[in-house]
């Protein structure tokens, strides 16, 4: 076997040789690069519109694009920010809070509400953050003039941080606007325990005054309500005392104002009332011959019925002058469904207590027919 070891040992490089080698490599690289195609860099933002482009980039955008569409990148970032799996509750709550604050600053109070509400829903453990969320939501409600909600949220904030004076101040102001003066006074007094604030003192005095006025108004209403009920009771009592029979009332206890309400259209304010102890009734005169009626309000019970007839005769539809006080008969329809004649010279009150008389629709109705006429006979006969 032949052993031919090549002892071609290379000699170590000298510095000069090393330098020469480096230079040679540099030159080769330059030649290579220069041999490549020359192309312009076009992937970046155009020089003249770089700010515009920057605003559209999700990393740098300052506001949501007008059409509301987010690029996938922006959407992805947003999802990341609000992803419950990527964030702790505290981080989430703070993110939502920031979101709310952002909208609040731009006076988009309804959007701010949404942000804060989401933050609240997270129910993170941090009392300060929760207090802040409720306090801020209260502020948003305040500017939207939802004073009750502002009050509720301010008070919720106080449950997390009872020393939150801003929240308490807002609670006091909201309570005032919502007319809950006792609540306002309570909060004001608590605020004044820690600091003597002139504005709070003013609010406290304003609330005390408003409360007094509110109480006075309630008393006033109570009184007028009581008076109205008293008058109603007095009226019913008087009617019962007269002994007038009212339709649809089985006995005295059944009588109430609704059964005395005149049923004719437009006659609502004509309901019977008392003046100086005298009952004033609405009356209806019916004229079967001409299919006409006369409705008279406020006829005193202590005045003869004929006075009312004198008011309406001669009637405009009575061309022939047939209807005069002394040649007409006056009938009422009793609860026996029969016509009964009355003497118009009697007082209205006495007529109302006639044997078969029943007051229907709170109105005394009388049929007027010329005495001895065919019409009259027909009227009577059709009832038999």
């Amino acid at each position: 076997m032949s052993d031919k070891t090549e002892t071609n040992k290379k000699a170590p490089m000298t510095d000069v040789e090393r330098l020469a080698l480096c230079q040679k490599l540099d030159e080769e690289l330059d030649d290579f690069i220069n041999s490549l195609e020359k192309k312009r860099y076009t992937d970046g933002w155009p020089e003249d519109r770089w700010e515009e482009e920057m605003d559209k980039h999700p990393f740098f955008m300052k506001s949501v694009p007008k059409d509301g569409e987010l690029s996938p990148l922006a959407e992805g970032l947003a999802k990341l920010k609000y992803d419950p799996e990527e964030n702790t509750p505290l981080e989430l709550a703070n993110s939502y809070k920031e979101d709310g604050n952002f909208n609040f600053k731009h006076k988009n109070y309804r959007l701010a509400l949404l942000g804060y509400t989401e933050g609240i829903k997270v129910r993170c453990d941090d009392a300060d953050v929760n207090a802040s969320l409720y306090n801020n939501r209260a502020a948003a409600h305040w500017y939207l003039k939802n004073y009750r909600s502002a009050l509720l949220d301010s008070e919720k904030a106080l449950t997390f941080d009872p020393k939150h004076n801003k929240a308490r101040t807002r609670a006091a102001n909201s309570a005032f606007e919502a007319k809950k003066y006792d609540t306002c006074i309570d909060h004001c007094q608590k605020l004044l325990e820690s600091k003597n604030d002139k504005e709070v003192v003013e609010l406290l005095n304003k609330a005390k005054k408003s409360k007094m006025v509110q109480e006075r108004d309630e008393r006033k209403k109570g009184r007028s309500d009581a008076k109205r009920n008293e008058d109603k009771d007095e009226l019913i009592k008087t009617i019962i005392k007269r002994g007038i029979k009212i339709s649809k009332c089985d006995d005295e206890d059944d009588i109430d104002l609704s059964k005395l309400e005149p049923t004719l259209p437009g006659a609502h304010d004509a309901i019977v009332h008392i003046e100086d102890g005298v009952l004033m009734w609405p009356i209806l005169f019916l004229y079967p011959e001409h299919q006409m009626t006369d409705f008279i309000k406020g006829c005193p019970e202590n005045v003869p019925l004929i006075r009312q007839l004198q008011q309406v005769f001669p009637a405009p539809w009575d061309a022939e002058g047939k209807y005069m006080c002394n040649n007409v008969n006056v009938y009422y329809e009793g609860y026996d469904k029969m016509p009964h004649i009355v003497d118009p010279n009697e007082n209205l009150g006495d007529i109302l207590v006639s044997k078969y008389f029943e007051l229907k629709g709170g109105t005394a109705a009388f049929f007027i027919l010329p005495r001895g006429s065919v019409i009259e006979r027909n009227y009577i006969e059709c009832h038999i």
Partner: protein
Amino acid sequence: MAKDPLDEMIQFLKPQARIDLKHIALDHLLGLSGTEDGINVLLKNEKIIQSIIELTNDKVDEINKNALLLLVNVTANTTGASEIIKYKPSYKNVIEIFIGYVLDQQKKDADAVCMILSNITRQENIVEECLDSFMPHLNDLLNVFVNLDYNKKGSKLHYLAPMFSNLSCSPRIRKWLTEENPYVPLLKLLPFCNYEQSVILRGGVIGTIRNLSFDTKYHDFLLSNDLELLTYLLSPLMGNEDYPDDEMDKLPIALQYLPKEKQRDADVDIRKMIIETLNQLCAQRKGREILRDNGVYYVLRENHKWEKDPNILLACENVVDILIQKEDEVGAEDLTTVEIPEDMTEKFQKMDEEYINSVK
């Protein structure tokens, strides 16, 4: 010199004496204090009085109580009151000791102490003498007074009210009542004008206001808007009577449309004091105008219809007479400066008596 029989008692009244002996001795003395003569006998013996005062701090409650009751009787007597305040058992004088009891939440029978203070202050000359003892504690006493649950041993401390009323005879007290320090004391007292549970308390507070009203320089303060004095003063004079709407509107808001259950104050003296106060407030033109603007005339008119007591009817008419006139008819800016000749005074007094007798 005859030996004072009471001297023998002294040994039984010492703090370290046997309890049953203390009891018997004190009981005997308490009985003695029930009569004027008895009080005079007691007062002659300084050491007895001293012992009794010391016994007000005894460990045994019953002894305390009797000692205090004894002092109530003694101070009810005018000489008794002036004598008592001279005592200075320890470094504190008697007044300071009593005030200390009132400020002690755990002191039983503090009500008796309040009665003692009320008795003592009833005389004007005494008030000036012991005012210096009262001054440093006024705010504390006021706080105790307004705190209805202050005393934890069942004392209501209502008699502090007449004490304040008596004190208000002094100009220094009136000054304290009306100045901010840090709050105005009178403001805290006012709501008690309507304290239904105690005539004594009501009377004391209203008495205080009445005394203030005798000093015209406080009228501006009394009738200032924030005080709402008329709301508190007029309420006891009003029942559930009806006023026509235009009159109702002038009354202070809290007095408008009072509920059906409202009743006038049943106590004659209180009603009288209120009307006297209103009378005083009529002294100056500004006061008269404010009273007229707040419908005081209407309230007095209705009150006159209801009132039966002749003295009050007269007092009522006096105020109404002033309010009913127009300003030029009244003729004087400040009625307190009008000089009345003596014969006229006699004549007026006679007229008053006749009126009162005629109403009876």
